[in-house]
């Protein structure tokens, strides 16, 4: 079968499997968060708005962490459709609505603070890195475990990383305040993070040559062999 036909046939089922509820919840939360200053306290300050946008991006990224959840994972694994294609399709289907949502979030935030210019590009970079991290973590969970729902683990890890970056803000300059001396270097770091996470996804999307064996069903030696197979 030609690849185009496969992709066309996969589009609808893949779209149906995407975590739309999670996206609606996370996206809705992000919108509410950035709308609050505009509605209630317009003089909240650009710093707080930047942080709100970060929280909104985190909410969206957490939803995206559920993108590879697939109850039918073990049945689909035997089909002659490679995993990179399946995962790529899901991400491609997710991108446009997420991009639109982020544009709306930025618009709402900008409407709330009309007298100062928000660092839109830099924050979009941060949001993209967070989303890429979510995808990378989920792909890693798929690659290295037999979970059908890697979303919770990926989302939990992403949250833990975000909180750690907040707590260790002095040592890990990622979530720096707008206008800080480290703003430029922080965003170089975000770019590196985005590239690394995307690369991690690409690597993890490739199917291992051997079948992943459930840990408990096999003696440990076989499990190790299974996991180290490429």
């Amino acid at each position: 079968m030609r690849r185009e036909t496969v992709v066309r046939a996969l589009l609808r089922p893949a779209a149906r499997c995407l975590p739309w509820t999670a996206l609606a919840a996370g996206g809705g939360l992000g919108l509410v968060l950035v709308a609050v200053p505009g509605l209630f306290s317009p003089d909240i300050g650009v710093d707080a708005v930047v942080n709100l946008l970060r929280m909104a991006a985190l909410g969206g990224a957490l939803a995206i962490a559920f993108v590879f959840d697939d109850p039918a994972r073990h049945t689909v694994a035997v089909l002659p459709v490679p995993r990179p294609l399946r995962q790529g399709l899901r991400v491609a289907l997710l991108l446009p609505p997420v991009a639109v949502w982020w544009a709306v979030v930025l618009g709402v935030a900008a409407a709330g603070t009309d007298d100062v210019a928000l660092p839109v590009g830099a924050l979009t970079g941060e949001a993209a890195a967070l989303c890429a991290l979510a995808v990378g973590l989920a792909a890693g969970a798929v690659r290295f475990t037999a979970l059908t729902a890697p979303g919770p683990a990926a989302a939990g890890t992403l949250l833990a990383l975000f909180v750690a970056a907040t707590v260790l803000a002095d040592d890990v300059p990622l979530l720096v305040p707008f206008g800080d001396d480290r703003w430029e270097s922080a965003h170089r770091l975000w770019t590196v993070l985005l590239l690394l996470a995307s690369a991690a996804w690409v690597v993890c999307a490739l199917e291992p040559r051997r079948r992943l064996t459930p840990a408990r069903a096999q003696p440990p030696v076989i499990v190790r062999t299974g996991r180290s197979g490429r």
Partner: protein
Amino acid sequence: MTVLDRPVQAPESAGAVRAVLALARVEARRLLLHPMVAIALAGYLLWPLWSGSWRDTHQVLQEVDRESQLGPLLVGLAGLLAANSAVLRSLRHGTEAHFGVLVMPPWRRTVAHALSVLPLTLVVAAAVAGMFAWEATRPGAVGHASGFELATGPLMVLFFGVLGVLLGRLVPSMFAGATAVVAILAVTFVFAVLPDGVRWLVPLVADEGAAPLPSDLVGRPARWHALYLVGLTVLAGAVAALASGGRTAAVRATALGALGVTVAGTVMQVTGPSAALVEARERATRDPASVQECLRRGTTTYCAFPEFVPWVDEWRVVVDGVRSLAGEPAASRGLVVRQRVNALDGPSGGGPSGIVEELPPGPRGEVTVSTVWGDEGRLGLAVSVARGMVVDDENHGVYCDARGVLMMWMAVNGAPGGRAAFARTQTSTLWSPLLEIRLRDRENAVVRALLERPAAEVARQVKASWAELVRPDASTDRVAALLGVTAPAETAADREWRCA
């Protein structure tokens, strides 16, 4: 058919309670060993070692108690996710149907999950108590802690855990827990400046930034906030039980009772400080002498809020150090060192009218010391005293003459460790509790040059020409010549200052 219309209710018995407790025990162990919770607990316990804060001295206990809440908040959020994951485990693994045939109804399992958060709560409570005991026994710890503030951290852990259980029962996806965590983080840390009526609805109210207040002036409704958290916790647990089918009279009554408690706590915590407290704060801010204890040590009188009296002997070291550098008559003049706070917009002030951002200057013959002590506090007091010796005036102003140089040199030399602290900063500003001594580049260069010279020799020269140095018309060139250094020329930036 009619028999099967309603699910069979398990009889209330000791056996049912035992089963709930047994399940709670198993789940509690799994909760404590959940990776997120274990990592959060380890991070929380190791943080004081990592940041070096375990070495802090001169803690003010009415600050320490509320600073104890941040770590538990993060542990609690991990607990939320873990408890949420535990409740949804049977759904995730497709074993919900198997549980359906057990005698134990789903709502009792929910209750067991809610109870499973208790051991984590106790672990956090023990950690809070241990850390507080450590800080309270450090040298120079003063003040009084509030048990309710200390209890808030563990109560948050319990509430978040039960909230995780509730979310698991309401939404069959772990995404709800993650979203809740983001929402909690946002309302706690990003909306830091919420209006008074709303801010106490957030589990953690930090009140950071202001200098510590005497404990009787702290207006945080900690007790009502703790009650509010207890109410919310029980309410969340009861609603979770109701949502999983436990519609018994006892559960309904618990839910209603918890709702009442929550509402009561909410109402009480947003009423704001009492009139008596507002009056006490006014008095402590505008007329501190009326509530302070004074001790005389040599020619200096130290007046402190009663809780801070143990610090007087340490203040004395700094004051005597700075005084010994001054010449007569200033060196033996009577001096009052008065501790002052701005209590009007302090911790959860809900300050009424007349909020003063900064304290007004004190009367002549008095210098101000704050409620913070430690390296920074030492230098601050030294600045206050040096200013009192040289100009005896706590009004703002940049001194572009000999007096500026003299004050800075005395403060840096008089405070223990002051030279090292000043060498580290590249700025030309030192902060006293009330105001700062700010120097222009020119005067700053003279001070730094003076610090290069032997201190004893400079001190002798200062004493010898004291009368000339403190005259308002003594120029920077003059002080440099008298003390044996050269002053650089005035820069363009220097000329932009408004000199006193």
